């Protein structure tokens, strides 16, 4: 059922969007949050469950130490305060994906709160997203709906549940309402989720693979009439699981809310489902009031009270902020904004970092990794680093190739042929150059003879150069290179021509 929407621009002419994002990050701990069951992705159904995560009577949960540490590190990276003392709470609801009939979560005492994340947009402007809280909880089981349309709840006659995921640690990161985003709301939402993903990835506490569900995003959106300061009724769109979808879902909801409000209607506070294929949202279950979950402190777990020493020790383990790191690398490498963006988008930052560390120039590292190898990786549907690793091509190869050029053994076009050979699995650059007989002619006598012949054959050009038109040398260099079958050093040829014509 499609609902009415109005164009995005029309909605924004009359209303200001207010955005709120809830992101769930699944931690990459070896075990679940409250029991020692493994968390391996893709294991046989119900093979990683025990009495605790099944909620069997008498089973007692115990908190995973690494889960708490990861939660604190995420909180610190988001500039949050870390609670000196906090508890878990039971969020009570009946749904078969949670066999205990409650989810162990945190309610009014989150482990971290009151932070922010500065998000850099494409044009370089920075939007500060205020973080309300980041709390610990556990994931639910996975339901497969059988009958009716594949996988959807609608029309299913029964559901099949796998509890392997039930109890895997989650950190839920909740923003404060984001105001003043205007027409950039969709872009900011996307940029925030991307920045958060990069940050969590840099922390190494989660795979943050949106396509595998280890990072999931709920989008809260409301509109308020321009100039108003009273928040409107919001909708909560669940499971928006790609960066592009986050942007689209915000845009769609702005148009839908706009249509309801501008026709004098009232937005219903509800959960919405996002449909990736059609790019729309549809109504889900109505949102229960918070009190309907009847939260209460979890009696089976004792409070978490991280000492300030622990917190500071964890703070010392924080990696450099990903955005700041990119700025630092760009300035060290001397790349233009465009070059840096291409390198980032191609996933080449780490590879180039390693290559430069191994001794290559930043320009050389970028050139060799983003040319032919990137094209081949792309054809193969892989990112460059995994593709290169699969071929056994390493930063050392780039360093060696560059060395052959600097040493004057190869010119640029030869180096390209050698690199192709390396990618074809013919061995190291030196081996490829040897095998293919690629080497600049070092016999200066042969080069000199070629230069003399070309000057003799082009007296008019030679005269021009004698008169000082040095740029005319290009035509002669081209002919010398041709005579040498490409195996000459063009710079050397140029120097020789100019010297013979009195211009050096």
């Amino acid at each position, binding site marked *: 059922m499609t609902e009415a929407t109005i164009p995005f621009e029309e909605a924004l002419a009359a209303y200001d969007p207010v955005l709120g994002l809830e992101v769930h990050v699944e931690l990459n701990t070896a075990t679940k949050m409250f029991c020692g069951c493994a968390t391996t992705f893709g294991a046989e159904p119900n093979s990683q469950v*025990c009495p605790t995560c099944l909620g069997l009577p008498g089973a007692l949960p115990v908190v995973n130490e690494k889960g708490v540490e990861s939660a604190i590190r995420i909180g610190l990276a988001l500039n949050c305060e870390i609670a000196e003392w906090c508890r878990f709470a039971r969020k009570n609801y009946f749904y078969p994906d949670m066999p205990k009939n409650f989810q162990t979560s945190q309610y009014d005492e989150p482990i971290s709160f009151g932070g922010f994340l500065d998000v850099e947009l494409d044009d370089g402007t920075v939007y500060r997203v205020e973080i309300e809280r980041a709390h610990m909880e556990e994931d639910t089981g996975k339901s497969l709906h059988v009958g009716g349309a594949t996988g959807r709840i609608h029309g299913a006659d029964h559901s099949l549940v796998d509890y392997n995921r039930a109890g895997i640690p989650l950190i839920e990161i909740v923003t404060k309402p984001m105001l003043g985003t205007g027409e950039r709301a969709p872009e900011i939402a996307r940029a925030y989720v991307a920045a958060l993903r990069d940050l969590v990835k840099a922390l190494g506490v989660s795979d943050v693979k949106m396509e595998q569900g280890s990072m999931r995003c709920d989008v809260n959106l409301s509109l308020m009439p321009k100039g108003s300061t009273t928040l409107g009724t919001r909708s909560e769109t669940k499971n928006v699981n790609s960066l592009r979808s986050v942007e689209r879902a915000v845009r769609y909801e702005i148009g839908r809310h706009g249509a309801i409000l501008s026709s004098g209607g009232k937005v219903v506070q509800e959960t919405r489902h996002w449909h990736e294929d059609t790019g729309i949202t*549809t109504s889900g279950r109505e949102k229960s009031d918070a009190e309907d979950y009847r939260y209460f402190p979890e009696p089976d777990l004792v409070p978490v009270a991280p000492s300030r020493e622990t917190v500071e020790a964890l703070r010392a383990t924080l990696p450099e902020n990903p955005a700041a790191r990119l700025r630092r690398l760009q300035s060290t490498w001397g790349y233009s904004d465009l070059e840096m963006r291409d390198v980032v988008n191609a996933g080449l930052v780490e590879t180039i970092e390693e290559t430069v560390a191994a001794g290559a120039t930043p320009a050389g590292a970028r050139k060799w990794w983003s040319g032919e190898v990137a094209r081949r990786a792309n054809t193969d549907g892989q990112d460059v680093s995994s593709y290169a690793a699969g071929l056994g091509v390493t930063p050392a190869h780039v360093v060696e190739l560059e060395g052959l050029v600097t040493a004057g053994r190869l010119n640029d076009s030869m180096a390209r042929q050698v690199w192709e050979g390396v990618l074809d699995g013919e061995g190291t650059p030196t081996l490829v150059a040897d095998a293919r007989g690629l080497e600049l002619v070092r016999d200066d006598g042969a080069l000199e003879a070629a230069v003399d012949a070309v000057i003799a054959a082009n007296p008019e050009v030679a005269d021009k150069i004698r008169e000082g038109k040095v740029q005319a040398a290009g035509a002669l260099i081209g002919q010398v290179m041709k005579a040498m079958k490409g195996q000459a050093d063009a710079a050397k040829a140029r120097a020789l021509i100019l010297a013979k014509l009195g211009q050096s």
Partner: protein
Amino acid sequence: MAELTRDDVAHLAGLARIDLSDAELDRMVGELGVILESVAKVQKAPTDGVEPMSHPLPLTNVTRADVVVPSLGTQAVLAAAPAVEDDRFSVPRILTED
């Protein structure tokens, strides 16, 4: 404290998925009312300067290392399920989406 109403009890019964008949509802309003009155007396105790307690044991930070221990095993897990299909718990249709 406000008096517990029949609507409150019906609401709570709904949340807890307990199906109460009219007669049971009437009885529960009275019984729960008495319990609430008794608990209300505790709330009158002077607690100024007393730290709230959430656990009878004065413990914090009871954790375990992130080390895998064997799970129950799929067969044992599914033996407890009322209905099984494809190694998963088969449950009635959940909610309608639209």
